[in-house]
């Protein structure tokens, strides 16, 4: 791709991000999409960087969409995932895009899937989507990608319990990263036990993202999963989910803004704080 069209691609992606271009929300993604999720600091970005390296050595053109949280107070964000991938910044066959969650729950930005669609159209394959890592229910990733990888580190041990409800159910591959640290094996046994109990059969791969150990095995597991889904019936990106998310976002902003304009919103908040019945206030808001 020439310089000029790379700038055009970046500008298109920015438009998608800013809600100025909607057509990519419903476009098919031909490329294989890989999600990397897991609690904060488990090594998602370092692992992503290793995967970029792996796919580049194979001759693939790789793209990454990396998510970090927006501040709920200022609406701003400090996007730092890219720091771990900067050695690929000048590689013409690697495209890295950082996105902020912009108030959306679920671990990915509203625009992540649509950006992946634009990157797929531009010929990047695979596309890796890193979620933000707050260790809650970052499960939306499974609605967007073909292969979801849930990353654990030996230190996340006690968090498994909390994550069971959501994140344990979405993974196609489990990774125990930082397996250079002691208690990595304990983590693997714990995960194995959880999986046996829930009757799921999922590969668990041990990696050391900081040195590259285990990346080959991880890539092979990804390949196996890809063959599985591409040969049977490919798990399609949930377009309905995408559209629903964006509609919900737009409707919410629209209603909130119009209520705020007429001060109904502030009055409602004040009355709720005072202890008025929420159902009554909702009725009042909806009829106004």
């Amino acid at each position: 791709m020439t310089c000029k069209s790379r700038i055009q691609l970046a500008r298109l992606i920015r438009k998608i991000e800013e809600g100025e271009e909607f057509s990519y929300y419903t476009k098919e993604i031909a490329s294989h999409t890989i999600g990397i999720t897991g609690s904060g600091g488990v090594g998602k970005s370092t692992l992503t960087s290793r995967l970029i390296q792996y796919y580049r050595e194979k001759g693939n053109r790789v793209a990454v969409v990396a998510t970090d949280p927006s501040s709920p107070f200022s609406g701003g964000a400090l996007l730092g995932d890219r720091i771990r991938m900067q050695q690929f910044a000048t590689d013409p066959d690697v495209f890295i895009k950082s996105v902020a969650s912009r108030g959306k729950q679920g671990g990915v930005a509203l625009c992540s899937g649509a950006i992946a669609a634009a990157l797929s159209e531009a010929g990047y394959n695979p596309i890796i989507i890193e979620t933000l890592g707050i260790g809650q229910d970052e499960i939306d990733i499974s609605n967007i990608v073909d292969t979801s990888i849930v990353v654990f580190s030996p230190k996340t041990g006690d968090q498994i319990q909390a994550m069971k409800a959501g994140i344990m159910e979405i993974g196609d591959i489990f990774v125990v990263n930082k397996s250079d640290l002691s208690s990595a094996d304990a983590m693997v046994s714990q995960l194995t036990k959880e999986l046996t109990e829930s009757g799921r059969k999922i590969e668990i791969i041990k990696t050391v993202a900081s040195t590259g150990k285990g990346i080959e095995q991880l890539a092979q597991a990804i390949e196996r999963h890809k063959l599985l889904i591409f040969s049977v019936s490919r798990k399609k990106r949930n377009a309905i989910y995408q559209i629903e998310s964006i509609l919900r976002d737009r409707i919410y902003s629209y209603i909130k803004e119009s209520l705020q304009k007429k001060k109904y919103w502030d009055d409602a908040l004040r009355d709720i704080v005072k202890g008025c019945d929420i159902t009554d206030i909702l009725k009042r808001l909806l009829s106004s």
Partner: protein
Amino acid sequence: MRKLKVIVAKAGLDGHDRGAKVISRALRDAGFEVIYTGLRQSPEQIVSTAIDEGADFIGVSILSGAHMIVAKKIIENLAERGAEDIPVFMGGIIPESDIAKLKKIGIKAVFGPGTPTSETINYLRNYYKKNDM
């Protein structure tokens, strides 16, 4: 309304990153989306990052004394890649006498030690408005 996107970059072997982090946080707290590149970036890396991220601004933090060379290379690289419309500004330890020279080669503004972060924030917002980017 678009969110404003800023690249904050550290160039070359300069390891002083406190100022870059201070300004990154201040911009985040003012509602900007900041992409921090980390240390030891080449001008090419900085420019590529700005292009791919669709950045509105590039901010470079330099305390090593290499500001003239780095600035020149970034401006040249932006032009080579057809991205000269991305404004570049700088901060760090930059002698007063170099500021005019930097502006001459295309750096939009320089914010040295002691500049209140609100000044930088207002500058960027006004620049965006004025140039209707």
